[in-house]
């Protein structure tokens, strides 16, 4: 990757296109095998210790996606080559796009849910970088963050769901899970798992109410929008729903949810699309519509609707990517993206106009384009359901009519009619920019003319994979005069009517402002703001900057924790026979004297010295009770501590006297007393417990023979537990760094202040 980005920017995109093309041919070469009903399966990167089985799998469903991703990818790279010509960031864009493409292919071919999830998240991540590509613009950054948070949040839900499913199935392998259908459905958590997975897919595929990140993501450069947010990434959720369909297709909740949300999304997208004039936004909302339709079709489930779904998936990818690229061309050449103010461009850009018309006709569903085939299939599927599904039929009708209208806007209105003035002088773009949409649009035509070729080779195995049983699909262009044809004709007529009234509809719909006020997008923004406010408030509460406050909190919590643990575990105990008074313990008197002196000392310096007395008394205590090493260490530490503290007091701006008022002192006294009680309690409990001498005897016995040393303490530190000691001195070193760095600020800052004071 690094090597590639160092090539002259212009070559990078072409290299990437070549890579994509190679992948395409690979996929295409496997197509005949897969079409015949075979499944290509490779064990690949499993991690048995983690319980991940890994594996790659290419079946009909994956094949469709792989061909789409790599095919459109090739064209996109060519397009980007021309679109961002001369832009120094082209290299970066291409690299991230290639990473995205790889992640997409990885997700599609993964046979393991964990691997799939990793690639899923990778696509979200690369999308984040791509949407935020113009990172100097606030709009782009916000949109990128929004997309990441929503798809990432959905990703978490997805992970939870996938984990639950794989636990129920006993394997993380997708093929294994699909085979273990009964086990998965019988699991008590089967429904929550399904819901979580659905949630993940819905966020990724922009279903209502998570649809709003998609239009916002239009802040990305057009090649990115054409690739990710129309043809590939957003379809990933649809892919997973289709992939898991054999598992859930008989579950009523699944059917209802998908159908309901899919339909809602389709309608929402259609209506919102009619409110926009920015070409990219219109296309984004129609993508939302298409995604909704796809989800709805998967939810309906019988063979007809699944066939319709797969066909529509391909069709949509073809025309949408083409139209996005056309929108990019128009933007690039005329300097404007506003459909309301563009018109009559065909004379200046004849080739572009032709391509746009081709793609738009497919979108509108006119014969002989493949879009027509898809629309017919959709209507057929709905009709098959019978009278109860009339609502769905109506939904499809409305949505399709709106789509027709928009298709007309994108072609006729833009390119024909009165010529309107534009910021730049328009002309046909370079071949590299045109080849992409041209190929896609003409594919739409040719496949429409011979739909069965596509049907038998690609759609058939895909449908088989989704249904979990072999299918036999025949696609025809002409089904004869029947209800479906009538419906299609009616749709187109209504669509044209809407188109003619478009200029008046848009402002009317825009005026319905409550849509904006109550949109999920607002909810998201509100939520994000509140979250940040909350975070700020809690931080101010806890990090208040007062050192004595921190210490007080620390002590109170520690004492509480100790006492609470003792209480919960019923650990309070008093050693039997009470505390034996040992003559040696009289050293404690000295210690107590030091402590009291610390309390009543008038200046900080005096307090430090008194504290030193406490330390020395502790050392004496150790010595007297037979722990010479500890005593030795304590003496040395105490000396150093007094010396260092004394120096610190002189150098740092700490006032000498004790400034606390009576109330404060009383409060601190209580805290201190509390701590003292806690310590006594815990020590008493420890002493009361019978002493387990096993470790001590072992160390004592082993010290000389294995470690050649008579000083058990030292031997433990240096030999038996050397690794711990290594960790300790590393911590010491780190502490030294930290203190030195901190002190640099304090000491440095103090100098100017003291100069000012005089």
């Amino acid at each position, binding site marked *: 990757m690094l090597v590639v980005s160092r090539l002259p920017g212009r070559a990078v995109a072409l290299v990437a296109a070549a890579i994509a093309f190679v992948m395409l041919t690979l996929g295409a070469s496997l197509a005949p095998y897969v079409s015949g009903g075979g499944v290509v399966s490779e064990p690949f990167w499993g991690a048995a210790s983690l319980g991940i089985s890994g594996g790659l799998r290419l079946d009909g469903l994956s094949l469709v996606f792989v061909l789409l991703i790599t095919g459109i990818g090739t064209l996109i790279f060519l397009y980007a080559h021309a679109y961002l010509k001369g832009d120094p960031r082209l290299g970066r864009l291409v690299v991230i796009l290639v990473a995205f493409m790889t992640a997409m292919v990885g997700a599609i071919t993964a046979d393991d849910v964990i691997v799939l999830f990793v690639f899923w998240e990778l696509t979200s991540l690369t999308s984040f970088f791509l949407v935020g590509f113009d990172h100097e613009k606030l709009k782009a950054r916000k949109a990128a963050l929004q997309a990441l948070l929503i798809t990432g949040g959905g990703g978490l839900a997805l992970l939870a769901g996938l984990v639950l499913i794989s636990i129920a199935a006993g394997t993380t392998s997708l093929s294994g899970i699909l085979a273990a259908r009964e086990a998965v459905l019988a699991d008590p958590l089967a429904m929550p798992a399904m819901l979580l997975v659905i949630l993940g897919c819905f966020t990724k595929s922009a279903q209502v109410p998570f649809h709003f990140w998609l239009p916002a993501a239009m802040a990305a450069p057009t090649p990115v929008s054409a690739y990710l947010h129309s043809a590939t990434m957003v379809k990933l959720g649809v892919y997973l729903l289709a992939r898991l369909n054999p598992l859930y297709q008989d579950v009523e909740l699944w059917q209802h949810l998908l159908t309901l949300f899919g339909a809602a999304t389709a309608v929402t997208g259609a209506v919102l699309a009619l409110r926009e004039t920015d070409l990219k936004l219109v296309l984004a909302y129609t993508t939302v519509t298409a995604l909704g339709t796809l989800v709805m079709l998967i939810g309906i489930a019988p063979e007809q609707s699944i066939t319709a779904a797969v066909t529509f998936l391909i069709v949509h990818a073809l025309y949408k990517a083409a139209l996005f690229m056309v929108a990019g061309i128009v933007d690039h050449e005329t300097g404007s993206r506003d459909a309301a103010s563009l018109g009559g461009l065909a004379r200046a850009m004849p080739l572009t106009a032709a391509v746009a018309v081709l793609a738009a006709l497919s979108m509108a569903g006119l014969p002989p384009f493949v879009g027509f085939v898809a629309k017919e299939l959709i209507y057929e599927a709905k009709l098959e359901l019978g009278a109860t599904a009339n609502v769905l039929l109506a939904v499809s009708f409305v949505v399709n009519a709106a789509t027709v209208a928009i298709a007309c806007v994108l072609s006729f209105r833009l390119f024909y009619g009165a010529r309107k003035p534009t910021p730049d002088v328009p002309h046909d773009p370079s071949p590299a920019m045109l080849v992409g949409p041209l190929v896609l649009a003409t594919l739409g035509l040719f496949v429409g003319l011979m739909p069965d070729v596509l049907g038998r080779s690609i759609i058939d195995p895909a449908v088989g994979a989704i249904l979990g049983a072999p299918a036999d699909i025949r696609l025809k262009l002409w089904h004869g005069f029947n209800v479906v044809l009538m419906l299609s004709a009616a749709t187109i007529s209504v669509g044209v009517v809407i188109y003619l009234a478009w200029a008046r509809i848009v402002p009317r719909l825009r005026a319905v402002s409550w849509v904006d006020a109550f949109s999920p997008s607002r909810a998201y923004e509100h939520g994000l703001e509140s979250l940040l406010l909350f975070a700020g408030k809690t931080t101010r509460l806890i990090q208040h900057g007062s050192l004595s406050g921190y210490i007080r909190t620390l002590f109170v919590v520690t004492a509480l924790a100790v006492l609470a643990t003792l209480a919960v575990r019923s650990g309070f105990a008093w050693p039997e026979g009470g505390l034996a008074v040992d003559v040696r313990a009289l050293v404690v008197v000295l210690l107590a004297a030091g402590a009291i002196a610390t309390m009543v000392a008038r200046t900080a310096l005096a307090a430090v010295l008194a504290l030193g007395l406490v330390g020395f008394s502790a050392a004496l205590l150790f010595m007297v009770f037979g722990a010479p090493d500890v005593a030795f260490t304590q003496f040395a530490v105490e000396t150093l501590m007094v010396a260092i503290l004394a120096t610190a007091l002189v150098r740092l701006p700490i006032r000498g006297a004790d400034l606390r008022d009576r109330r404060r002192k009383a409060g601190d006294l209580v805290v201190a007393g509390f701590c003292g009680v806690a310590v006594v309690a815990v020590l008493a409990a420890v002493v009361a417990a019978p002493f387990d001498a096993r470790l001590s005897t072992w160390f004592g016995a082993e010290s000389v023979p294995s470690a*050649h040393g008579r000083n058990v303490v030292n031997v433990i530190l*240096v030999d038996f537990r050397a*690794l711990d*000691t290594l960790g300790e001195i590393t911590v010491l070193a780190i502490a030294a760094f930290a203190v*030195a*760095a901190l002190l640099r600020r304090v000491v440095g800052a103090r100098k100017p202040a003291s100069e000012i004071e005089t």
Partner: protein
Amino acid sequence: MSLYVLVRGHNDPGGGFIGGLLAAGGVLFYAIARGAESARAALRLSPIQYCGLGVGLALVSGLPALLDPSKEYLTHLWWFPDVGFKLPIGTALVFDAGVYLTVVGTITAIFLSLVEERTV
């Protein structure tokens, strides 16, 4: 004296930590008496470098153990060359020396930053 305490540590009270503390104490009093700059000059290396040296030494002392496939990292090895009596030499001393240097470095770093305007 601190070096004596270091070496003595394995069989009698002493060892790396204590030796290091004593050495640091020495540097400290030297700095109080003669000033921080002279103390730094006397040390020759900067305190943080001592820290690094110390941790490094400790890490290295565990490596010879890896030469023997049956032993884990940080298993200390011993030789007893005969110089009239059996002289115990082992990697444990190297480890302890590492501890010693780290302690010296840490305390000196902290102290010297406090005592003067220049840090580290």
